[in-house]
């Protein structure tokens, strides 16, 4: 089912690969080839460190299809130390302890299962508490 839709995002999903603008040095994630700051072409790949902190968060109780097995789960906007915000699930964390500013780091985990038990497993980045 729509394997190419996930396959073409493998660098972003597994490696947190974005871009850096050669003109103004802004780091870009998700990548978009045009710098959102200066408007110049920005196709230089850049691998983020995967370190950041929780910028905002929520715990999802009513989960969409493909995610309901793990509900409730906590999702966050993570401010990467290089600047951009990344939308991601938090993992290996007690939801009660999550707060804005909590340091986190990227890990690779199963994101969802498409369809039934024979459906494709989608892997990608999540973030866990770091010290």
């Amino acid at each position, binding site marked *: 089912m729509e394997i190419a839709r996930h396959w073409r995002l493998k660098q972003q999903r597994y490696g947190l690969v974005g871009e850096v603008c050669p003109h103004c040095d802004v780091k870009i994630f998700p990548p978009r080839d045009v710098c959102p700051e200066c408007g110049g072409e920005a196709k230089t790949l850049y691998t983020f460190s995967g370190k950041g902190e929780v910028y905002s968060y929520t715990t999802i109780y009513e989960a969409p299809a493909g995610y309901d097995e793990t509900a409730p789960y906590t999702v966050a906007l993570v401010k990467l130390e290089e600047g951009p915000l990344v*939308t991601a699930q938090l993992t290996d964390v007690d939801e009660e302890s999550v707060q804005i500013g909590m340091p986190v780091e990227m890990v690779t985990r199963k994101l969802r299962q498409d369809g039934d038990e024979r459906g494709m497993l989608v892997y990608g980045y999540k973030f866990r508490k770091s010290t």
Partner: protein
Amino acid sequence: MPINKLPRGVAIVGAGMSKFGAFPDKNGRDLFVEAYKEMTRSVDKGLDPSAIECFYLGNFSSDLFERQGHTAPLLADAVGLTPIPAARVENACASGATALRQGVIAIASGLYDVVLVGGAEKMTNLPTADVTDTLATAADVPFEIAAGFTFPGFYAAIATAYMARYGMKPEHLMNVAIKNHDNGALNPKAQFGVTIQKWMEGRVAAALKKGKPAPAWSDIWDFLHDDSANPMVAWPLRLFDCSPITDGASAVLLVAEERVREFTDHPIRILGSAQASDAALHDRADLTSLPAAKLAASRAYEMAGVTPKDIRIAEVHDCFTIAEVVASEDIDFFAPGEGFKAAEDGMTAREGAKPINTSGGLKSKGHPVGASGVAQAVEVWKQMRVEAGERQVPGDVPLAMTHNVGATGSTCVVHIYERRD
């Protein structure tokens, strides 16, 4: 960049909407016919449909909700308007106001004199999980939805950031839900036209009827804090913080200023029309405000030549209670961080200084996404012409505003209206 005035005046001369709710016996077309007929009846001097030259339809996703694309000509045919040009406009939950703005632009350009603007969405064919998936297509699917976010989740993250900055508590948001249900209870078109007090009493009565023990809620605050009555959807947002899944349609008739008197002596003139776009939520510098909404509002004020204090009422996009709080600040009714206090103090109630969502808002009236933006204009039309019945605000409404948002603010459309008798 200076804001251009509309090069030609545009006014609403008729407005109508279907009942909002869940209607297994009706499709989007049926609902639009209902809205169109009410609109035609509202034109004071009568409407000859052959005067209508063009039709814009706000609709988010008939393709996924109804498995029906190419919706605009089908709806035009359903009300007997073919062969006039018909076009569907899609901007997620802001589709309706975006269609309205296209109608305004079409007349202001001089190309047409009489334009029909509609909105329609039939959402309840699908089970809730599929509705959620369909709405999710309004976000950045590969980078936001893949993480397991939902729309309640996005607005919950906005609420979390807002609470951290301004000291708001989740309880403050309940004021918005209570107020909008109070208004919706007076709107015969509302999906959940019942106060939260009545809702709670209904739950108690239903339990007793089934021979079960009556829940012991001491008051509506107790009810709203009960996880079984008001379950958590995405912390801090509970069920009563969320707008419902709705079927519904709406319609307004726009006419060039010089021809208005053929239709009515009580038109509602569109003084300002502005729209702005933004990136997904993860590309914002700040989550406590929607930059596209602030920009659209400031441009609409400038185009109209009025200030926030001149605006008597506003219909804002309360897809979630936090969205109304943020909207009330983005349109500059209240300073940043003051919106939740204004709601608590009753300033946004019908009798307050700045009534917001007299219709019941998306929360109580319902949110058929493509229809909502046009339905906001229908409410403003009724209030300004003193036709809102029991929910009529006290005093004159010379100026009003509508604020319609797509997704988490990737689109915002703001209109300012003036009564011109």
